[in-house]
């Protein structure tokens, strides 16, 4: 009789997986709420390197286009005043004539930043690749 009682019921090993999905969804909700899809946007620009001894690079004046913005928000292309709407077209025309044109955007120190962005945007839209940024009215 004792022989028969020794037969044990083998229990099947089971891992409870029913709550696994709950845990997973909890984590999902956490990551979903913390994710911010604030896609960063902007205008790319590479600043010129700062050197100990500033070397002078001579640029022929016909290869340089100066865009100047004064503190009243008026814009000048090589000392002649233009309207904001025409900046892009003018820059494009000049670039077509001379593809090596270097464009320097000089903004007055008290002029709102928005004007500089407008000029920079117009130059980018016109296809200008070689752009420099400067300030009028001194440092500090």
């Amino acid at each position, binding site marked *: 009789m004792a022989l028969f009682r020794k037969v044990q019921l083998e229990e099947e090993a089971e891992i409870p*997986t*029913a709550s*696994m*999905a709950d845990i*997973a*969804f909890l*984590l*999902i909700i956490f*990551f*979903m709420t*913390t*994710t*911010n899809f604030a*896609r*960063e*946007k*902007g*205008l*790319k*620009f*590479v*600043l*010129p*390197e*700062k050197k100990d001894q500033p070397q002078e690079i001579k640029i022929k004046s016909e290869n340089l286009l100066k865009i100047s913005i004064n503190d009243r928000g008026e814009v000048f292309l090589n000392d002649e005043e233009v309207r904001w709407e025409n900046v892009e077209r003018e820059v494009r025309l000049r670039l077509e004539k001379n593809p090596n044109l270097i464009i320097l955007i000089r*903004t*007055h*120190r*008290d*002029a*709102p*930043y*928005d*004007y*500089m*962005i*407008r000029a*920079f*945007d117009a130059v*980018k*839209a016109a296809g200008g690749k070689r752009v420099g*940024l400067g*300030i009028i*009215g001194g*440092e*500090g």
Partner: protein
Amino acid sequence: MRIKRKMVPKARIPTASMSDIAFLLIIFFMTVTVFRKAKGLPVQIPFAKTTERILKQRDLAHIWISKDGKVSVDDNIVSPKKVTLIFRTKIAENPSLITSIKADKDVPYRYVHEVMEALREANALRVVFATKRGG
């Protein structure tokens, strides 16, 4: 006599693969999550037509310049000299750093100029002027 018993099939939703789907979603969100490091200053960024999307979000460092010329990095109001110091360490940690300048559209240009000079001093040369599409 036979009693006809209808076999009612039990309704069952297969849940075994549910966790797989869930984990897949987790992995997706884990990889795309970039935790925000700083809150910044309230600024109205300008509009620009040629606005581009910046894809390398992990290389971005932000600088805020408010309307009254305050400069904020990592939620601290800092001076331009401090900007150089901070960005020198940042550029040492990540040489492909891109600095996003979030300046208010009405801030006088000299404040932006100061920050750009400070970045040049720190050799953090790749910048992005944060803008919104439009204009």
